[in-house]
């Protein structure tokens, strides 16, 4: 009997360790996935939004950065989001919580248009 118990214990221990490792490990893996999907960038350069169409998962925070010597804005055509005037190197962020296509433009230079596709 005693020998059997030892055998069972020696069998259970590695399994328990593996389960514990999994429990400890999995949230951190998920968090890593989450943070890489949660941020995306649009660069405003030479009067162009780049990339012009940005496709991101739901929950992503998109940050626009103005790299021009001239102020720009990033304003949703449908009134979903609206940046303040972004002078050189200023940023604007918006988190997309619903799937959909979000066209936007620069209200100062309306020829500048872009799109965020949220999936």
């Amino acid at each position: 009997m005693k020998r059997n118990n030892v055998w069972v214990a020696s069998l259970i221990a590695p399994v328990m360790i593996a389960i514990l490792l999994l429990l400890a490990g999995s949230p951190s893996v998920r968090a890593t996935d989450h943070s890489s999907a949660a941020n995306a960038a649009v660069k405003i350069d030479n009067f162009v939004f780049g990339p012009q169409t940005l496709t991101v998962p739901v929950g992503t925070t998109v940050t626009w950065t103005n790299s021009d010597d001239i102020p720009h804005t990033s304003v949703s055509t449908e009134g979903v989001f609206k940046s303040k005037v972004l002078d050189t190197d200023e940023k604007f962020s918006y988190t997309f919580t619903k799937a959909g296509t979000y066209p936007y433009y620069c209200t100062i230079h309306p020829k500048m248009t872009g799109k965020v596709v949220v999936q």
Partner: protein
Amino acid sequence: MPDKKQDLIDQNLQDLNNDGVDRRGFLKCMAWAGTGLVWTMSGGIPASRAFARSSGKNKDAAKGADFSFVQISDSHIGFNKPANPDVTATLQTAINKINGMSHTPDFIIHTGDLSQLSKPSEFDTLDQVLKGASAKQIYFVPGEHDMLSDNGEQFLQRYGKGTKGAGWSSFDHKGVHFVGLVNVANLKAGGMGSLGHEQLEWLEDDLKGRSASTPIVLYAHIPLWTIYPDWGWGTDDSEQALSYVKRFGSVTVLNGHIHQIMQKIEGKVSFHTAMSTAFPQPAPGTAPSAGPMKVPAEQLQQVLGITDVNYVVSGGSLAIVDSPLGTSGSSGNGGGA
């Protein structure tokens, strides 16, 4: 890229050839100079030339004129990037140049982008500099930089007293009818400049009943003719506005926004854009974008300037002279136009 520029010249030439020539003058020569497109016309019809190259002739332009006014544009007070770290100083130079003219202009028209970011402090600085101008009356229309954040509320309070809508208005001066238009409000995604239905209706009404012999001057920030759609250098509904002035014998359209001289004559309508007092912008299609163009510091004053318009009643014509800020003859002792 030079091809695009050439296209533009060709297009302009074509317009001239197709206009039915009901004008007293004709185009004599055209060339690119350091300051932009230079036109010379005979018969006292709008002339535009590099001030530095023909200062002798410029003195004649003012002679016999019944009155003159000056257009300044795009002072962008608050801009401090390498293309011009001191835009207040260059605006001051422009005002000094106006004050040094042999004839005092009756008034000044500022065709917008007074400020860089519509900040109260920027408008304050502008006011301080303009206070020193010999001409006390100044008319303004806003540029897109003057309408940031507050839909132009502040601009209207400071510079739009007595104007309608987003700041449009008209006035008469010595037989000439002036109309200031606003084409930088409520711009639509993907579009260019826009006047909007309400303003167009007002314009039609404003011009109604005026004699066709009344010289008309239209001024607005963004060009009222399509110069380069890729960069938004035009006004979507300008066609409509121009249809209201077709019956008039002399129409001059003065714009800013593109920070360089461009001209086109279509029938009896002369289109003209002015240099900036702050920084130059590239010729259409010659750069990746319309952003500020950096030139060597010693060349900056050759690509900034003012526009002097002389009106002669007898011919009902206006002579337009563009003057770069940096010219040998501009030093305040009557050497100006």
